[in-house]
């Protein structure tokens, strides 16, 4: 839908949309790591994911954009009520230096090494990035990636269940023995959705 919409409007609108999405992307990314409350960080990450989805649409990756919103909005929403604690940070200088080094390295790699090769995108068919094309690739050329993904998801689901049930068993044992230290008898802090 979007490429059709944009191709009729010309390149100027693409730049405007790109600029808005890019600004939102960078700003919400900085917001994620600068809020002290993880709740706000999670909200900022959702903004980041939404603006990324716009960039994906501009790159004709419609299916990935839809999956991005569905998967990540769902996954991140779960994180909202999780218990958390903040704290002052140490080694700020080293951390900032390392992050700036990564940034400079990437930008230099983009700017110096590959600039000439990046300005001519391949011409693509209209079905590029559509659900049908993604499905065809998943079941033909990229079947191994598809199978590996399913195994990874299965392992993660089993791991999540095991971790959750162990935590619950610990809680039950602590409750039965009657030796719950003050502060441990507050299961109300853990939201029902995470139990």
């Amino acid at each position, binding site marked *: 839908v979007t490429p059709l919409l*944009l191709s009729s409007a010309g390149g100027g609108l*693409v*730049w405007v949309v*790109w600029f808005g999405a*890019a600004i939102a*992307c*960078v700003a919400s990314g*900085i917001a*994620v*790591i600068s*809020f002290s409350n*993880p709740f706000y*960080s999670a909200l900022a*990450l959702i903004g*980041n994911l939404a603006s*990324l989805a716009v*960039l*994906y649409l*501009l790159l004709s*990756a419609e299916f*990935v954009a839809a*999956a*991005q919103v569905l*998967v*990540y909005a769902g996954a*991140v929403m*779960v994180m909202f009520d*999780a*218990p*958390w*604690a*903040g*704290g002052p940070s*140490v*080694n700020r200088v*080293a*951390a900032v230096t390392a992050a700036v080094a990564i940034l400079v390295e*990437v930008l230099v790699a983009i*700017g110096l090494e590959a*600039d000439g090769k*990046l*300005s001519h*995108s*391949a011409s693509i068919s209209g079905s*590029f990035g559509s659900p049908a*094309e*993604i499905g065809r690739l*998943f079941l033909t*050329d990229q079947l191994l*990636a*598809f199978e590996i*993904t399913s195994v990874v*998801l299965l392992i*993660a689901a089993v*791991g*999540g269940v095991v*971790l959750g049930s*162990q*935590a619950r068993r610990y809680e039950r044992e602590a409750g039965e023995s009657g030796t719950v230290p003050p502060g441990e008898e507050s299961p109300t802090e*853990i939201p029902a959705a995470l139990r």
Partner: protein
Amino acid sequence: VKGPDVTWYLAIAGFMFATGALGVLLRRSPLIVLLSLELMLNACNLALIAFSRLHGDGGGQIFALSVMAVAASEVVVGLGLIVAMARRNLQLDVDKLTRLRG
């Protein structure tokens, strides 16, 4: 469609990756470390999709979807660990969790 080059998308991806790395290195709440990891994975996804568009090859999008599945798995396990830590009344501070230090 005339629009920004792949270079511009890669610049955004690089900036996001550096931001996420900064968060992982700087923040001590495991939840925010997890969120910063998501930021880094998403930067990689953006680069993958930009290159996929550059070469007109859908394989990059497939691998972006695989990265998404890995990121979702990582959230499941990481969040499970954080909830388990919170239930045992451990401090949610990655610098104070030193029992496994070698």
